[in-house]
């Protein structure tokens, strides 16, 4: 045995030791590449706009003047990443949370419609799945309508819903939630039909040998067996629900909500505001999915998942 093998191991940098580098390098590389492409694109797309601006004002300009201008134009075709981030940070932290210019305020408006719509849609979807699983007749009569309901573009339906419900005296949160629910019940209904029918035939026969009632079969077998399907469809549904809420905000004329910010941004050519609202929507969607994922983890560990 040589003395070198007894020497203390060479010091490995902390980050390398826990695989942090291996884990995050691909993601970081991807993000950096996208940002680089974004900068190049914003320079290219805003170039003529900025140059024409200089020429209209008949001020002398150099190459570097135009280059700098493309990245801080007030109404660029494509805002540079730092402009979007600045606008987003300003929108989130720059105002009191309930001010009409605060992104937090608009996010909360959209979030409440999303969550209410999600809950309504989930309950409706699960109820439909239960009916379909328990009756062949209902399966044949309901399923075609459920599928048809999703072939109508929601962009066309949303104004009709808003107008009709408005005539009935319903305004604000509920109509938006109903559109959300209309979109998100579908993946839940389809997923839960699959989930409720997922138990092994042997497990169903065992329940029969114990003379279990249909309700016991549902609560002790079909419902727990469908939990993985439930969470898979909830993850799809929550993002669709957000899209539904945003779309539903468009025909309201842009009072409040992320949809309203998107609409007014595009009306007035406020592209930076538009992109900041998009970032807010993306952050909202990711956090909602993360929350569903967290709930899934919690439930899984209680149900013996591994």
């Amino acid at each position, binding site marked *: 045995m040589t003395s070198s093998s007894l020497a203390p191991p060479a010091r490995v940098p902390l980050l390398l030791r826990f695989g942090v580098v291996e884990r995050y390098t691909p993601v970081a590389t991807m993000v950096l590449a996208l940002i680089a492409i974004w900068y190049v694109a914003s320079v290219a797309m805003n170039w003529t706009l900025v140059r024409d601006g200089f020429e209209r004002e008949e001020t002398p300009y150099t190459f570097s003047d135009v280059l700098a201008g493309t990245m801080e134009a007030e109404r660029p075709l494509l805002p540079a990443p730092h402009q979007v981030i600045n606008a987003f940070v300003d929108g989130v932290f720059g105002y009191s949370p309930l001010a009409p210019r605060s992104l937090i305020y608009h996010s909360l408006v959209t979030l409440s419609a999303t969550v209410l719509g999600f809950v309504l849609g989930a309950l409706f979807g699960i109820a439909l799945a239960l009916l379909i699983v328990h009756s062949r007749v209902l399966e044949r009569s309901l399923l075609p309508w459920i599928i048809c309901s999703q072939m109508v573009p929601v962009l066309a339906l949303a104004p009709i819903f808003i107008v009709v419900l408005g005539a009935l005296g319903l305004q604000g949160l509920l109509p938006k939630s109903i559109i959300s629910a209309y979109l998100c019940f579908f993946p839940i209904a389809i997923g839960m039909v699959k989930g409720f029918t997922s138990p092994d035939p042997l497990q169903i*026969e065992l329940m029969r040998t114990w003379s279990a009632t249909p309700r016991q079969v549902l609560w002790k077998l079909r419902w727990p067996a469908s939990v993985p399907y439930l969470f898979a469809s909830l993850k799809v549904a929550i993002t669709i629900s957000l899209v539904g809420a945003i779309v539903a905000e468009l025909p309201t004329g842009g009072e409040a909500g992320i949809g309203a910010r998107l609409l007014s941004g595009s009306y007035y050519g406020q592209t930076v505001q538009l992109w900041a609202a998009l970032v807010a929507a993306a952050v909202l969607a990711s956090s909602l999915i993360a929350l569903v994922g967290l709930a899934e983890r919690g439930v899984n560990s209680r149900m013996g998942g591994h």
Partner: protein
Amino acid sequence: MSTKATPKRLVVDAKAISLTFETADGRVEALSNVGLQVAEGEFVSLIGPSGCGKTTMLRVIADLQQPTSGTLLVNGMTPENARLARSYGYVFQAPALFPWRTIEKNIKLPLEIMGFSENEQKIRAEHHLSMVNLKGFERKFPWQLSGGMQQRVSIARALSFDPAMLLMDEPFGALDEIVRDHLNEQLLWLWRSTKKTVLFVTHSIPEAVFLSTRIVVMSPRPGRIIDVIDCDFPPDRSLEIRETPEFLKIAQRVRNGLRAGHSYDE
């Protein structure tokens, strides 16, 4: 050593059971004129090649399938009433445990369904887990147990509500030889200590001869009984009796029966 002096209560009394069903290839006679009497406390094995109707017969007794004709009394009742009265526990070839329930809660499942009190559930789960030597595994989940252990849990589950009879459909068919031998000994001990009536479907000759008080040999197309063999080894027998001439003689008779009923065309 005959016990015919005191006629025991019949747990299964089947007369002229037939079951036919239509398939795309025509009529299949799964059971043809099958008669079977099982007295309380007996261990009866149904043995035969696949398609001989042994599993179908078990399912008919369990009211999982209905015969086309014939009369059948289970525990003195119609099969449906016997099922509703929870007269039997059924063990399938696969353990069919509920993966989201711990071992203890799996055993409690039929008890929950049948409305036993919380306290009674706990006592029974504990008792039956120790009967199959799985004390200490209460809080484990099924995936943490081996196949043989899982099957023991499913036997404990079938016994938990104290049914009059145990119906077992090739319960050890998916296990390897060593585990199977071990479980055969355990099942024999369980049968002896609980005095339950057991109806046992298998296609293993040594298993049938080792466990049974009576072996019913069946044959396919149509599914029928071709031989019934009495078997009276001492109740505290061990696996060693499989080497004795008496054992081999009975095994030979079962084999002859199976051969006679089997068509080697296919």
